[in-house]
């Protein structure tokens, strides 16, 4: 019974998440190895979510022993663990959550690991660094950058906290945006689509056929009719677009023809700007598209895309190949699907040829990029994303001042901007006083102005003055005194785990900027600095 359950388990257990990132995404997660620094509640919650999802392996680095305060905010620790290694105790619970995951631990303080054994980190896919002060974080960021390891920094501090991704470059093919225009090419139908559209009489007397003519056909025919009457141009001004809609309506036999209503609603698709978007233009013009032996597969594909656009594409990207559902006779719809699929496949074949010849040219095995990968790329060329992150060193030494000022000035982001500065100030104070501000009730009143001074000096180094700092928030941060409150840690840990998933599966778009949590009124913000 148990064996049968275990056999059926993986596919059924992960069903709800497989519907989001598919088998390939899951495979990427199961191959990944994660390093967690500090397993307080923030780090533990991040790992818990990843372990539940079937991450390959986790290694916890933490030198602390379990104490009473851990029992008040960490679900994975109980009385039985008191006095034992915190990392060891966390691992054994994580193992119980999912025995397919390999959970290991190293009893060592993260700061010491960073200082004495930087090469330790090279074995991992992602390093999640929680509750690290600035000095350690900067060193770690530099280590991870050189080894090209993804770093996710997370911190929870009273009612605030942060999450920050750091990697030189992260390229996404399957960004899977929520809403994206279909790739119908109504403004530039190719031969087979034109032929099919022509083969249908849009003025068919049969009422059923008339109201089940798919809108793609209607729009291709009427766009051509319009262009013929307007010097080959398609509707572009507001007036013209309105007239085009009237032209469509004029072909309706009666008011309940859903296909014609859909045609009117989709009429704007005929007026799309031809060619490629600015975002994609930026990617293909990027210097990385001049590929060589050390280029990643992604950039090789971008190089092929650039060639495709200039040749077979005639200024357009490979066709995506799917069409949305629309009112239609089944046979018309299925025929249209086949026509779009065929063109997408032929565009993909052309891309494949180009990929192979580029690979040969740069000295790589022409079969080293799979057809499946090329196919996925072709379907997603309009949605490619290249995420480049500044190093933390750069961010701290040369922040984008105009953005900082904008964030301070905006009601929805000024708390977040304050917290960002105060979290940095807290670390400075801690370095000078060997403790966090506000930790001792007896010193809290003196700590408030000390924290303000430290915050002002952070701002001064940035080239700004302290005028925008909120006295209330300075007092709040002293009140927090570094407390890890479980729900806040769970929120931050949850966000960190979500970013790791996106980064490992290379699907969806990871966080760009520093996310600052605001537990006071929940108006949290991403600061792009």
């Amino acid at each position, binding site marked *: 019974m148990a064996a049968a359950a275990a056999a059926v388990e993986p596919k059924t257990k992960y069903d709800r998440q497989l519907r*989001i990132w598919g088998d390939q995404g899951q495979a990427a997660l199961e191959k990944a190895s994660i390093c967690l620094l500090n397993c307080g509640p923030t780090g533990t919650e991040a790992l818990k979510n990843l372990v*539940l999802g079937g991450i390959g392996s986790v290694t916890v680095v933490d030198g602390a022993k379990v104490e009473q305060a851990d029992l008040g905010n960490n679900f994975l620790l109980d009385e039985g663990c008191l006095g034992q290694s915190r990392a060891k105790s966390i691992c054994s619970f994580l193992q119980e959550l999912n025995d397919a995951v390999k959970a290991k631990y190293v009893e060592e303080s993260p700061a010491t690991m960073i200082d004495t054994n930087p090469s330790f980190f090279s074995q991992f896919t992602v390093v999640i660094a929680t509750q690290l002060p600035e000095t350690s974080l900067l060193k770690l960021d530099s280590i991870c950058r050189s080894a090209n390891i993804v770093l996710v920094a997370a911190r929870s501090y009273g009612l605030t906290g942060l999450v920050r991704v750091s990697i030189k470059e992260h390229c996404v093919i399957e960004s899977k945006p*929520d809403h994206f225009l279909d790739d119908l090419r109504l403004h530039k139908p190719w031969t087979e689509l034109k032929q099919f559209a022509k083969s249908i009489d849009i003025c068919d007397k049969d009422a059923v056929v008339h109201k089940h003519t798919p809108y793609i056909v209607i729009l291709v025919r009427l766009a051509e009719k319009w262009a013929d009457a307007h010097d080959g141009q398609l509707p572009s001004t507001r007036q013209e677009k309105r007239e085009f809609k009237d032209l469509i309506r004029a072909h309706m036999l009666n008011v309940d023809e859903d296909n014609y209503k859909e045609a009117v609603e989709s009429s704007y698709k005929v007026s799309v700007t031809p060619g490629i978007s600015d975002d994609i233009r930026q990617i293909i013009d990027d210097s990385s598209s001049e590929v060589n032996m050390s280029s990643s597969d992604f950039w090789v594909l971008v190089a092929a895309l650039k060639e495709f656009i200039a040749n077979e594409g005639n200024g357009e990207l490979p066709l995506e190949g799917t069409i949305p559902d629309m009112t239609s006779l*089944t*046979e018309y719809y299925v025929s249209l699907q086949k026509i779009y699929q065929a063109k997408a496949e032929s565009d993909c074949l052309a891309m494949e040829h180009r990929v192979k010849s580029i690979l040969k040219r740069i000295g790589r095995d022409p079969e080293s990029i799979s057809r499946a990968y090329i196919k996925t790329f072709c379907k997603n060329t309009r949605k490619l994303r290249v995420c480049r992150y500044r190093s933390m060193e750069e961010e701290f030494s040369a922040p984008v001042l105009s953005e900082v000022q904008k964030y301070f000035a905006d009601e929805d982001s000024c708390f977040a901007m304050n917290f960002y500065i105060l979290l940095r100030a807290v670390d400075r104070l801690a370095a000078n006083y060997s403790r966090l501000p506000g930790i001792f009730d007896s010193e809290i009143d003196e700590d408030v102005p000390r924290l303000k001074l430290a915050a002002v000096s952070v701002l001064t180094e940035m080239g700004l003055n302290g005028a925008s700092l909120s006295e209330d928030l300075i007092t709040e941060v002293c009140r927090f005194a570094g407390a890890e409150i479980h*729900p806040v840690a*769970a*929120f931050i840990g*949850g966000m960190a785990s979500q970013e790791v998933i996106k980064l490992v599966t290379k699907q969806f778009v990871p966080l760009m900027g520093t996310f600052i949590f605001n537990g006071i009124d929940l108006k949290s913000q*991403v600061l792009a600095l």
Partner: protein
Amino acid sequence: MASPDAEAAPPTEPERWRDLDMLLSRPGNLVHSTFDPSPGLRDLIGSFVEVLVVGAGGLGCELLKDLALSGFKNLHVIDMDTIDVSNLNRQFLFRIHDVGKPKAEVAAKRVMERVSGVNIVPHFCRIEDKELDFYKQFQIIVLGLDSIEARSYINSVACGFLEYDSDEKPVQETVKPMVDGGTEGFKGHARVIMPGTTPCFECNIWLFPPQVKFPLCTLAETPRTAAHCIEYAHLIKWDEVHSGKPFDADDAEHMQWIYSEALKRAELFGISGVTYSLTQGVVKNIIPAIASTNAIISAACALEALKLVSGCSRSVSNYLTYNGLEGTHIKVTEFVRDTDCLVCGPGTLIELDTTSTLSEFIKMLEEHPKLLMSKASVTHEGNNLYMQAPEVLEQMTRQNLSIPIFELLKGASLATVHVSGMAESNGKKVSSLRKLRVAFKGLEEASKMDTTESS
């Protein structure tokens, strides 16, 4: 209120709760006006606050953990479901050997095992099966639900307790706050509902988009997608072949039948894409779900509950949406109450003659344009005036039907009455609970004075 001795009593387990106490024992500037920081605040919360968690699934498991580690010691959890293998990727309180057991019971047991001092009472039943008094005992209700109907029900129960004073202001003691969370894939929301002050669930029900329904003629005559073929098998073919036998989405054999019929239809029409996974997804309306989003939304809800109860910081005002598909988008919107809301408003006004019988009143509800309620049961201040079910109660209250409702309401000129029955909503019949203000016409001055004395 508290005796001097109680105030001097040292807080329990201060080392364990060191971090939480930073927030609860220290004064702050951005706190609620009622915040009274003290080392004893956590124990007050632990002793006197009872929280109900509705749902022990993806959100519920996280909520129980978060609330238990936020100083709450008296929790109840209600869920009618049993554990399924597909829950295990995120409902971390359950293991493979728990499959088939009631979620509420296993969740309660696991959290109590791990967080000493917390007491969680599980309820393995439907939310509709509980008496109104059950819900009355809680200071705050936190929702981790996955359906509009369930949210609507709890909302109407909580708002049903709400009373307004003569200035049309909510009476504080009758306000039962709710914190509501929901997730779907990488998206989610968390909101705080203070009945009478912030919008209730019904005030903003338009926020939830209507469910996709395929037109029958598409399914029957011009299918185009795999989903059309599946729904044809599910909604049309099943009844044709199994007339009378209800379709059970949890029965693997039933699902297999739908899948093979859908495949046949797809083949007939030349449509591709029917898979078993898609069949399940369409028929069961499966919502993709992951641990991280549930963790995030539950954490926000638990934090709001902590802040509401303790006053240790401000509350979100009042609706947070979360979207993690592209970076992270968090937006807080301050929605406004619908003052005419049928559920959280002062109540639909019904004017009656003093001679109208209870039976005539019940009949009126069927036709009232704002209610359209059939088979109504009527209660007043906890007393059953007439109950449609169960049989024994129906028999006991049947005699009231012919009595003037004015008498049954003890001769008050204005009374709040609760009615529950089946109402029409978007073409569907749903169970509904409504608050009504009943006012009697043509009363003499003298009799008005009598009634105020007697109440």
